[in-house]
């Protein structure tokens, strides 16, 4: 199974570093937990207090991982030297053989067609200007189930190819059965065309990469033949909503330090995040096909978060997985609203929980087992925090309601005095705050004094204000996320699976109705929780307010934070600015230009571009294109042929509104039916042509 059983030069160092990390985490957790036990009234001697200390210890260990990672990242970035970096300046790219081909894959699923093709075009243009285009081919791998999006994608593909002369360079593939979702889509590419390419760069529908970065990735893979996956650290850019801009800012300011820290611990055992990474295709095809987990979803079935598992399998086979944290020019987009982010988290949560079933898999490296656990803990920690808060409330209520037992059952010389020391509690709170917020302060210090790039963040005052505002913002949103993540874990454990929804790629905002529908449970819970605590133990109520206030305000927070106008307002005030906004790189400038370019063609026949199915039926050019893209007419069973004939009649007489999405898809996959329908619609009398098909002659 293993490609090279020999020890690699970095592995010994990795073991040393991971032991150090473990010692640091355990020691800080032990100290903090001891302190916590002392803070509690009975010094951690009751069952409830023991449970509280255990929950606290788990949570503290969890947050201290982030703390130590950031601290190490800070030291690395300050030193500006890392002998284990993968991104060594080495030979030139002209060392790469002409025969080395790379495919850039963009899997899409009912996403905004304009955004997908604008991103692709920006990357294409950047590659062309870097002179590296000849080494790369582009593949739009569509899993779109919406018939309108499908046709829209085809038309956008043809238009892009025509405009950049990209026929034979930019390819489009639409997959009918969406088996295994994104991972299945990539695997489908590998099975069909994988052998024609040595590498593939996997994108998300919102990814953009610069040509020089792509060329650099290719060079690094060529110079490091043991590397199976090379992951970049993508920067979140391009959004206008307030919450997305805050995330962009946090990602830009704290991200590099955190990525450097991750690299320090992980070295060649890094993660693959599913996009913005280059992959060696041959070992990927050989070793990274995903198994199906026994049982039904959510914990069984197809693996949702395929990326972590693919990295683990690649590593299991002896190939290295590295994080090129210093490489710039790799971009993605943050979810535009809180609800969109939570919807994505719901999917990730299920995927990460599935990883727990692979924890003991034979041959997986310990580092990847830890990463599986770490991924699952991202969500389990929420429920631990929730439990911790609940236990704390019970303890506080018990203190207020129950008579203290000064003389326990076993005989003692002295009575047990419940002791409450607010000073210790404040010290514990401060040290927890330090663990949480020191990384942010270190990033601030790094940008201010080492990088001296504060002008790229709007200047000293604005940058300082932005950091402060981000801290307040993240503090407000943490309890809301905690509650939702707890719910997700709970629902998954109850066996409720998640569907596959397209991720929105535009700043559409959240309506009040949506917000209340999503948040009313949390708001109600916080109100009841707060009322009970306020009535019974008022002093504890004030300790709970940082949790309760955001929960009570979650609906308005969700709406306001999802507003693009508010985000733009903050930008005009110079808050949450990032270097990519102040001096945008060429790829992002062209992306913005493509997105803001008004559509030159008026909708022909009064049919909107987004009405893909109607365009395919009515517009002779789009119809022609779709028929040309479809494979040859397949022989079908007489029963199916008869059904399709009926469908054509139904559509021709009743118009598109009479058809369901699956019926539209059935017509689209059958060239003969679509051709017949096209003819019949054009031959139909005016009441059907203009009435049912709503075609208006200009």
């Amino acid at each position, binding site marked *: 199974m293993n490609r090279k059983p020999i020890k690699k030069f970095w592995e010994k160092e990795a073991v040393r570093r991971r032991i150090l990390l473990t010692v640091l985490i355990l020691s800080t957790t032990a100290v903090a937990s001891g302190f916590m036990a002392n803070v509690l009234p009975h010094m951690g001697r009751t069952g409830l207090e023991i449970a509280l200390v255990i929950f606290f210890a788990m949570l503290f260990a969890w947050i201290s991982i982030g703390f130590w990672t950031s601290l190490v990242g800070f030291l690395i970035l300050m030193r500006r030297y890392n002998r284990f970096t993968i991104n060594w300046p080495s030979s030139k790219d002209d060392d790469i053989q002409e025969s080395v081909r790379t495919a850039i894959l963009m899997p899409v699923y009912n996403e905004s067609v304009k955004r997908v093709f604008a991103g692709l075009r920006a990357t294409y243009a950047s590659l062309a200007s870097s002179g590296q285009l000849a080494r790369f081919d582009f593949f739009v791998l569509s899993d779109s189930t919406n018939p309108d999006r499908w046709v829209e994608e085809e038309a956008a*593909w*043809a*238009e892009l*190819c*025509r405009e950049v002369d990209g*026929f*034979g360079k930019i*390819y*489009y*593939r639409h997959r009918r059965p969406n088996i295994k979702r994104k991972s299945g889509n990539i*695997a489908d590419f*590998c*099975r*069909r*065309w*994988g*052998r*024609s390419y040595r590498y593939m760069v996997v994108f998300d529908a919102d990814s953009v990469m610069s040509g020089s970065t792509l060329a650099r990735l290719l060079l690094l893979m060529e110079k490091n033949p043991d590397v199976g996956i090379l992951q970049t650290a993508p920067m979140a850019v391009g959004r206008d909503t307030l919450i997305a801009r805050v995330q962009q800012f946090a990602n830009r300011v704290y991200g590099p330090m955190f990525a450097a820290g991750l690299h320090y611990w992980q070295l060649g055992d890094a993660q693959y995040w599913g996009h913005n990474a280059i992959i060696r295709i041959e070992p990927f*095809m*050989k*070793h990274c*096909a*995903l*198994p*199906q*987990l*026994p049982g039904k979803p959510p914990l069984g079935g197809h693996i949702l978060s395929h990326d972590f598992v693919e990295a683990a399998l690649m590593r299991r086979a002896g190939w290295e997985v590295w994080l090129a944290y210093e490489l710039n020019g790799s971009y993605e987009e943050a979810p535009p609203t809180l609800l969109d982010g939570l919807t994505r988290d719901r999917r990730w949560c299920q995927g990460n929980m599935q990883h727990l*079933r*692979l924890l*003991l*898999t*034979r*041959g997986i490296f310990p580092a990847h087992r830890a990463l599986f656990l770490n991924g699952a803990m991202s969500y389990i920690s929420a429920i631990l925090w929730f439990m911790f808060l609940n236990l704390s409330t019970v303890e506080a209520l018990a203190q207020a309601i129950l008579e203290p037992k000064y003389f326990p059952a076993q005989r003692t010389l002295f009575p047990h005095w419940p002791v409450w020391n607010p000073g210790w509690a404040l010290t514990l709170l401060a040290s927890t705050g330090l663990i949480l917020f020191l990384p942010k302060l270190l990033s601030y210090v790094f940008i201010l004094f080492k990088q001296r790039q504060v002008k790229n963040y709007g200047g000293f005052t604005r940058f300082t204000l932005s950091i402060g505002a981000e801290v307040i913002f993240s503090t407000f949103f943490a309890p809301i996320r905690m509650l939702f993540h707890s719910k997700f874990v709970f629902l998954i454990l109850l066996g409720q699976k998640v569907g596959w929804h397209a991720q929105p790629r535009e700043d559409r905002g959240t309506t009040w109705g949506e917000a209340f529908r999503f948040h009313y449970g949390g708001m109600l819970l916080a109100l009841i929780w707060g009322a009970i605590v306020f009535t019974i133990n008022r002093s504890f109520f004030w300790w709970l307010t940082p949790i309760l206030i955001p929960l009570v305000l979650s609906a308005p927070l969700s709406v306001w934070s999802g507003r693009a106008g508010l985000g733009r307002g903050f930008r005009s005030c110079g808050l949450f600015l990032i270097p990519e906004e102040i001096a945008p790189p060429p790829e992002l400038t062209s992306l913005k230009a493509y997105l803001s370019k008004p559509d*030159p*063609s008026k909708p*022909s*026949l009064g049919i909107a571009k987004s009405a893909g199915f109607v365009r395919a039926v009515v517009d*002779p*050019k789009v119809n*022609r*294109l779709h*028929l*040309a*893209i*479809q*494979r*040859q*007419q397949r022989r079908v069973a007489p029963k199916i042929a008869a059904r399709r004939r009926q469908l054509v009649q139904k559509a021709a007489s009743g118009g598109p509104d009479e058809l369901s999405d699956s019926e539209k898809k059935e017509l689209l996959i059958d*060239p*003969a039916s*679509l*051709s017949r329908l*096209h*003819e019949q619609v*054009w*031959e*139909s*009398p*005016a009441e059907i042509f203009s009435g049912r098909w709503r075609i208006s*002659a200009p």
Partner: protein
Amino acid sequence: MPFCLEVPALENKSVFSRIDTAPANSSAVESYAGAADGGDDWQNARDRVLLYLRLLDTPPILALSIALAVLRRAVRQCEKSNDCLPTKTAMLTLREVLSEQTLHPDSWWPFGDRDKIFGTTAPTIAGNETAGGLPEPAALPNSLPVTPPIARGRMLPEFIDRKPVRSFLAKLFSRRPKAGRPVSKKNTAGAAKRGSRRSTAGGPG
């Protein structure tokens, strides 16, 4: 303009010369006059034909010439039958006319240099079109470079032992043939078969 139709230049008289622009005889002239008085049906037919041609970005004068030829022929066809539907007949005739002329449906390719894209200068579906209709889809060009040629490879899940302790114990306590005891051919064949099936299916996963 996003789509540009490559049509023969207007000066190309061969196109016009092949389009029937004159009435065949005096009765036809009367028919046209009758059709002109025929009201909405023929107006709709005219509009439909012109609209279709416009959607193909046909230059205006050429579109009018084609429409004229199409409508004349449609009128003649309608003379022969009592239950003629002008719009339907006109659209059927339009496809006939386009098939007969160099404006073959397959040359309406609106997305750039057709020959370059398809890698051929020959009309890919010439001769396959059915009379009076668009060409059968089976005869559509199959060389549109939507995807590159397939280079098929295998990608199957490897065996994943998620419970190594249990497998170890199962292996330890499983029945094994004792040394010296002959194993029946039947059992060996069965095990080999199971083994090969497992390797291709990627194990229990």
